[in-house]
């Protein structure tokens, strides 16, 4: 079966542009996570969805970052007015069960965002 897919794989934006990053989780997975991975660093949590409900957005670095999962499957991470410090790989992960089950998170390949 297909794993987590993300698109686009690479995105170059000029400073100030808005970008939208898409995540297609594994079919049937309830939980969906977004992480940001700076070069040479570990992934850092951004936000978490259980079905369509955004239960934790404590990691979003500013109000320029917005995520949604309207139908409980595909998710979009939107960054408005991009800044150079937003340059990173954005990883999406999904897991089958709900929070608390310590279920394996399966990661997508990420979207590498470069802001010029």
């Amino acid at each position, binding site marked *: 079966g297909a794993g*987590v897919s993300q698109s686009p794989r690479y995105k170059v934006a000029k400073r100030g542009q808005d970008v939208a990053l898409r995540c297609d989780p594994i079919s049937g997975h309830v*939980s969906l*996570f977004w*992480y940001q991975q700076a070069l*040479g*660093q*570990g*992934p*850092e*949590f951004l936000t*978490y969805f259980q079905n369509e409900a955004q239960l*934790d957005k404590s*990691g979003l670095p500013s109000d320029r970052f917005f995520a949604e999962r309207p139908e409980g499957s595909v998710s979009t991470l939107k960054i408005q007015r991009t800044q150079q410090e937003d340059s990173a790989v954005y*990883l999406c*992960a999904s*897991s089958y069960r709900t*929070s*608390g*089950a*310590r*279920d*394996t*998170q*399966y*990661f*997508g*390949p*990420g979207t590498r965002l470069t802001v010029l």
Partner: protein
Amino acid sequence: QQQVKQSPQSLIVQKGGISIINCAYENTAFDYFPWYQQFPGKGPALLIAIRPDVSEKKEGRFTISFNKSAKQFSLHIMDSQPGDSATYFCAASRRTDKLIFGTGTRLQVFP
């Protein structure tokens, strides 16, 4: 404290040798400790995970050792192979499943 500290930053091992990566945490509420392997251009993939009620877990050539009192855990890769060359991340989480990652260890295994 939510930090997970990982060392070393990089590791070079001869083929057949043992690779050891260490992690330490502060938050005693963490109850799940996975290790992820990441190849260039790929997302992290779960390698092995442990819960704090167990002191050791082994899967093939990979072993996690867990020391609850010291708040430390480590990954041992036995008989290291060139195909193991990758970046390894330890992580920790509480019941919310949000993973807190270490900074990563770049492992290079030479033939």
